[in-house]
């Protein structure tokens, strides 16, 4: 009996090793392990043996069965690999893939959605407001009365008021998304954390880093006890995220004092120019740094204008130069690339 079992094992294993196709293996499996297979039949004979022999023979039979099964599995695996290899060899796998017909989202959209997400994680809500704006929200509510010299830094496009009730000079294309500060603050009480992405317009000659239409992400945070260090921390975190900072791509930022009538203290944020890595180029006006995010603690007059008590609540506000951020992130050396609908540009994103 033991001898027969060994024979079964040997012949099965040698047949398995010789097999060239899956089909042969299936046949071998059937011939040995199937319901009328040789091993199956042999194992049925064990019950006919004397009692004292059965455990040993039984153990042996099980070992034989396991060996055949293992060998089969190995052989099957090996054959599968070989067959797939042969199939691949029948085609030239270096031919190009057939690309699905999928378009591209504009880089501005991609960075904008990232900004919305990053700010959402910091508890900021998102708003959207009018581009056709009144002088009041764009300037006066922001502590920039008529005849204030700060208006020179934001040359304005005025809308034609003929055939309308508006008086000339009152209705403008907003020069900054900060116009939304007053609109939102006058309707709700703090705590507030809001961002407002949007397009702005200025009477400005176009060059590599300036456009008469450009995007900003306005933001403000107002609560009891909002501090300047919170502003620095928020800017630092957000810009590093949005510039895609990684171990191989270090972002350098620096802060400087500046003046906007609607903040005090006023902060300007500069980022090391990525176009030239700080060596100086046309984009950064040879300075190695690019102004990216003006900000500051909200001026008490702005808070007072919407009825907040500036002794009780404080806040910070900022405006990310989104158009410039996008160009800096992707090392594009001209802002105008963003409004150029050339698919050779768009398909890179």
């Amino acid at each position: 009996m033991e001898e027969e079992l060994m024979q079964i094992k040997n012949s099965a294993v040698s047949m398995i090793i010789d097999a060239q196709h899956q089909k042969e293996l299936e046949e071998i499996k059937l011939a040995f392990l199937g319901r009328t297979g040789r091993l199956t039949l042999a194992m049925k004979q064990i019950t006919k043996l004397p009692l004292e022999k059965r455990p040993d023979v039984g153990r042996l039979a099980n070992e034989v069965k396991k060996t055949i099964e293992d060998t089969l599995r190995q052989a099957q695996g090996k054959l599968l690999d070989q067959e797939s290899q042969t199939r691949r060899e029948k085609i030239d796998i270096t031919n190009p893939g057939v690309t699905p017909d999928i378009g591209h989202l504009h880089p501005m959209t991609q960075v904008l959605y990232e900004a919305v997400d990053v700010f959402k994680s910091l508890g900021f809500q998102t708003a959207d407001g009018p581009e056709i704006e009144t002088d009041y929200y764009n300037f006066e509510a922001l502590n920039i009365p008529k005849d204030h010299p700060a208006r020179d830094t934001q040359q304005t496009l005025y809308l034609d008021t003929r055939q309308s009730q508006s008086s000339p000079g009152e209705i403008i294309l907003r020069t900054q998304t900060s116009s939304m500060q007053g609109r939102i603050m006058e309707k709700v009480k703090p705590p507030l954390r809001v961002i407002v992405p949007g397009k702005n317009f200025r009477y400005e000659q176009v060059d590599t880093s300036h456009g008469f239409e450009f995007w900003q992400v306005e933001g403000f945070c107002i609560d009891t006890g909002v501090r300047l260090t919170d502003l620095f921390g928020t800017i630092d975190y957000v810009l590093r995220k949005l510039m895609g900072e990684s171990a191989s791509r270090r972002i350098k930022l620096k802060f400087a004092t500046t003046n906007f009538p609607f903040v005090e203290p006023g902060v300007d944020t500069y980022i090391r120019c990525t176009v030239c890595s700080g060596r100086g180029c046309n984009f950064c006006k040879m300075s190695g740094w690019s102004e990216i995010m003006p900000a500051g603690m909200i001026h008490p007059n702005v808070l007072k204008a919407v009825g907040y008590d500036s002794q009780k609540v404080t806040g910070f506000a900022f405006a990310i130069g989104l158009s410039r951020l996008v160009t800096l992130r992707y090392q594009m050396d001209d802002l105008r690339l963003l409004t150029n609908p050339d698919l050779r540009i768009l398909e890179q994103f």
Partner: protein
Amino acid sequence: MLAPLSWLKEYVDTTLSPKELGERLTEVGLSTEKITKVDDDIIFEFETTPNRPDLLSIIGIAREIAAIEQKPIKYPKLKINLKPSPHLSSHLSSGSTKSVLIKTDPEINPRFTGIIVDNIKVGKSPNWLKEKLLKIGQRPINNIVDITNYVMFELGNPIHAFDYEKIIGRTMDVERTKGGELFKSVDGISYHLPKDAVIIKDKENVIDLCGIKGGFKSKTSEGTKTIFIRVPVENAILIRRASQALGLRSDASSIFERGVNKGGTIEALSRCVNLILEIAGGKIASKLYDIKNEDFEPWKLKLRLSRLNQILGITIPEKKVIGILNSLNLLPVILNRQLAEKNHSNKNRSFASLSGAQDDIRERVIECTIPTYRNDLIIEENLIEEVARLYGYNNFPKTMPIGQMPIKQIPYAKDYKTEEKAKNFLKACGFSEIYTYSLINEKDLAEQRLNPQHVLRVDNPVSREFEYLRPTLKISLIKAFFQNKPNFTKKNLFELGKVYLGKNLDEAKEAYFLSGITNAKNFFEVKGILERLFEELGVKDDPSNLIEILNEGVFFEFNFSDILKRVNLQKKFIPLPKYPPIIEDLALLMHEKIKTIDIIEEIINHNSLIVDVSLLDQFEDSRTFHIVYQHKERNLTSEEVATIRSRILKALEEKFKAKLKE
């Protein structure tokens, strides 16, 4: 503003390298735009913020450097110090007294300081003076003009010297223009003055356009012997309006519209007179005129240490705060607690109640005395910025806002998720996104047969190319399509952007439009994309009328803002049917003009057991419809279906003369 390092060094010893100095100045608020080496000197180019007229002077910049480097300032030494006294100056020789009759109004000319100097000799300036002016981009003219210019750039108060002999009638009337007056400036250019400019008239002519430019007739020239030197404080708003109306800017007007140092006129005049006597000779020939309604003295401003630390988020030691304020010459004095409370309790009750619980030691109040050249320091927060900027913004730690996460609905809220969904969907359908300008030109409108009269317009466009606010995205999409023609055969483009609707400003309405153009998809493919997009957004709109077939390809456009209002992203699961449906295809013959949608509606509305009907194919007058019958609770029998079918066929024959194809 240009500032040579050599000139700055006359007032302050700086030990930093030019590069470091530029960086530090930028950090404290005087943005260094450029540092150039010229011969043996370094020229800084600064951009000055609107709140700091004092930084339009060399001494002002030197004071910033002194504060940064904790160094003293060396003011120029004067032999003669003019005194604001009603009596004649002690330097005045009584024999040659001269005078002018001044009529002014502090409302339009807050301060009029002046003096007459006699027996001067007008000539070329000494080399040191010419070189200094050249370094800051000023053209030397003659010693008198150069000195007035020099002192303006040195101290920040604009000065003008009139030829005394040419002031007809020896009268100077400061008044507002009525509009239309003719004025010829020192450089020989004639202007028609706007209304409400401030001018000085003598008996006959306008001899000065105040705060902007001096007049031609009374300018100092070769033969001038006697001059009247005027150092004014002008009304910032009037100067700004006149300068804008004329499109005429000068170094003086830049200073005045930001707010000149009101307390600095006599000091500047003294410096000017000293230099004139030294360089052009002559002697003082009149009393010191100083016509004003106010004293223009330094003012007090308080800073609470607790407020400083609360706003900045760091605790700066009192000693350090005092040190910084001292370096800025703000003369800080620590007031005791009692005094502090007395001063604040009336003004600010809320603060008093807040601070009551606070630590006594932290409740310290520092009182500063603000020099008149710092007219930007008006409220406590201004002093907080002073401390912060000199402490150095880049030395601050970084924290994140603490406190509540706001959750209540804000006005103007926008959910970007829907927009993102729509854009990603179009991307998946092969469309690439473009961003184009909102401003378009008249020709573009005409090409789309849009009446420019009914499109919102900018009054002062950057150029005619960008004059109108787009009422559609079609124009820029077609342009983008053609721009890509040379490089791409298949083009699928879309834009989601604002358009500006309404015939005039009263009706003006902004809306987001979603538009696209393609030459790689036909009408029905585009329709299918929009149908599926609407389904994705839970909106039941028929896109058939949103699509246009152009020569170039297929174009679609719709009001995305409208869709946004109706988006419904809520989903509810419908259990799968337990019983199999009966499906059949009916081939029908009917007139080609009959609309498929009418047939489908007729069939589907016929019986509630019909759950779906669709057009399978169409050829000439034959159309095959795919019909699904289903009962939710049991199996349908073919007899039931046959009955429904025959009724449908009967109805279709009656209504549409449609026949079952044999």
